[in-house]
């Protein structure tokens, strides 16, 4: 059975400016013991998706299902969900500097997590807290357990957050950009730590990240999100070598006319769309070098593409157009060209002009 199965998750926030459609029909499955990577630009709905699953989004309209071992988390009473949260599913957040309570000792905060879900004495919980700190590589844990968060460095605080998240041996660990706020060497250490803990404990992990290196290191499967939707989904290798969606390629810095490393998510020309007024048709069309007429009118559904099992993409380009090489670029270009009838408007988008194929 899948550990987690999200079906058609939709989250909207009513605000003074209008409805913010943060998540628009996201579905995915995750097997026990595997790692799912979720990537996408800022504002694509990654955090909202994760926080909604464990009932942390407030003031939102939510629909869809999130089946955790067959039980729909979104339909649970808040008290029942509370017993799952922190015990069976736990979460690590982006900014370890602000995610721990500044007024309580690190040990106290871990003990609180333990005692929220287990009937153990304060003493036993404290011993366990020390043990957890040791597990995540805090030196002299017997002493540091009584430190306040501000006595810890950023990396140590994230380690402490991980220790807290693992306190009740969760089945699913959701890490929302756990390394973004840390410097590079520390990032690598934290990812190593999570990898080795996963091997040891067999935890299922969802890793939200901006860092394609992280995805390349640990994800079994990757979902690319754009404007509240999953626009491409594939196993790690397929995503890196045989991507289909122009947005995915943009993230990897290999859009025509652009160089770039494959390490970090590359900035793509143009802005992510407003989630109150999402562009018609394919939401990526204002920034897409391959935009075709059809893209302006109809939103592409997430369909099987390429040859790999489970590779899906939401793009009107021909489904066999996967991969990075220039030939594919040329074919993509022709495919887009062929569809183009009202070309003036489209070509005026600038990006399209720079995307001339190098014949």
């Amino acid at each position, binding site marked *: 059975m899948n550990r987690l199965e999200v079906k058609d998750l939709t989250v909207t926030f009513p605000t003074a400016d209008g409805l913010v459609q943060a998540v628009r029909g996201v579905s995915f499955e995750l097997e026990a013991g595997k790692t799912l990577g979720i990537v996408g630009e800022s504002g694509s709905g990654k955090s909202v998706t994760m926080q909604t699953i464990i009932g942390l989004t407030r003031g939102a309209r939510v629909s869809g299902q999130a089946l955790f071992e067959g039980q729909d988390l979104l339909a649970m009473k808040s008290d029942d969900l509370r017993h799952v949260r*922190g015990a069976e599913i736990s979460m690590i957040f982006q*900014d370890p500097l602000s995610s721990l309570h*500044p*007024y309580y000792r690190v040990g106290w905060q871990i003990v*609180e997590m333990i005692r*929220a*879900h287990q009937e153990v004495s304060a003493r036993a919980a404290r011993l366990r807290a020390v043990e957890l700190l040791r597990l995540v590589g805090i030196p002299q844990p017997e002493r540091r357990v009584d430190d306040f968060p501000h006595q810890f460095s950023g990396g140590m605080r994230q380690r402490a*957050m991980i220790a807290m998240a693992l306190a009740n041996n969760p089945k699913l660990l959701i890490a929302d950009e756990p390394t973004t706020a840390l410097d590079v060497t520390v990032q690598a250490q934290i990812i190593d730590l999570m990898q080795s803990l996963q091997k040891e404990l067999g935890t299922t992990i969802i890793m939200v990240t901006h860092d394609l290196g992280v995805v390349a290191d640990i994800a079994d499967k990757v979902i690319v999100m754009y404007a509240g939707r999953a626009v491409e989904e594939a196993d790690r290798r397929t995503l890196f070598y045989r991507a289909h969606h122009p947005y995915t390629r943009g993230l990897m810095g290999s859009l025509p006319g652009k160089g770039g490393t494959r390490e970090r998510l590359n900035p793509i020309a143009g802005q992510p769309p407003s989630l109150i007024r999402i562009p018609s048709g394919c939401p990526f069309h204002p920034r897409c070098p391959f935009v075709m007429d059809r893209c302006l009118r109809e939103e592409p559904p997430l369909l099987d593409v390429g040859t790999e099992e489970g590779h899906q993409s939401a793009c009107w380009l021909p489904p066999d157009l996967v991969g990075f090489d220039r030939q594919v670029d040329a074919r993509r270009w022709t495919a887009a060209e062929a569809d183009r009838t009202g070309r003036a408007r489209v070509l005026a988008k600038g990006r399209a002009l720079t995307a001339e194929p190098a014949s």
Partner: protein
Amino acid sequence: MGAFLVRRVLFGLLVLWIISVVVFVMFFVAPHDPARLLAGRQATASEILAIRHNLGLDRPILEQYGSWVWKLVHGDLGFSYRGSVPVRDLLGSRIPVTASLAFGAAVIWLVIGVGAGVLAAIKPRTIADRLVTFFALFFYSMPTFLLGLFFLFFFFFKLYTAGFHLFPGSGYVNLKDDPLGWADHLILPWFALALVTAAVYSRLTRGTMLDVLGEDYIRTARSKGISEGRVIVRHALRSALTPVVTQFGIDLGALLGGAIVTENVFGLPGLGQLAVQSISDQNLPVIIGIVIVASLFIVVANMCVDLLYAVLDPRVRLT
């Protein structure tokens, strides 16, 4: 923590010393002839001479200051002109009244102010929030003496004429002698004094609570699966209390000022009433005594607030 304590106490002593100098200069050096001031209007020349000698005004200033402070720290504040009672005894009989009033009012203002603020913050833009805002504005725009008069009119006069002797219109009984009577005499003054500030505190608490509730560590707390009540009290309120405590330290002076007004409205025989009386009598030793007691109270109370602050925020302790 130890070093912090020592530093804070030393600072308090420094402030007290400065106050003693200011009071001394104000009452004994600056007046053209303190003896005449002290003797009152109808004093004869020989009386003034005697007073001058008694006060040691014919001695060098530093010596005068030294002996004044010496007496002060031994609790010798001289005698009141009215009935020649030692000022110390006079103050001693008044302090419990003012302390009861101020302490009770402070408790009520904190409980109501913080409670209403928290309520409004956890249910923003609901009826509860709007009600809190409405009452806060209402009491905020209501001076203490006016509120006191309203209370007297409705809860004393109206009830009394209707045959209910629920609240007395004035007076005070000792806590030791009759705890219920004590509370009964103080309940109207307490609320008259507390509600105005409670209104301010409900706004302050609501604002800081809303800020804190948006913090990342509150999201972390919720992700732990602890009850929402625990998230609000142990995690959010704990942080929101720090600015409230800071504000409370600032407002202690206002508390004393409010107590003076309230005592006079409700006929409570406390320091405030004594202060007003002594000023109109030009009863200088008593006025000096009250100034000293009031300063002492504010300095000590501020010290307590700072210590409380250090207990609340571990980052203060370590610096």
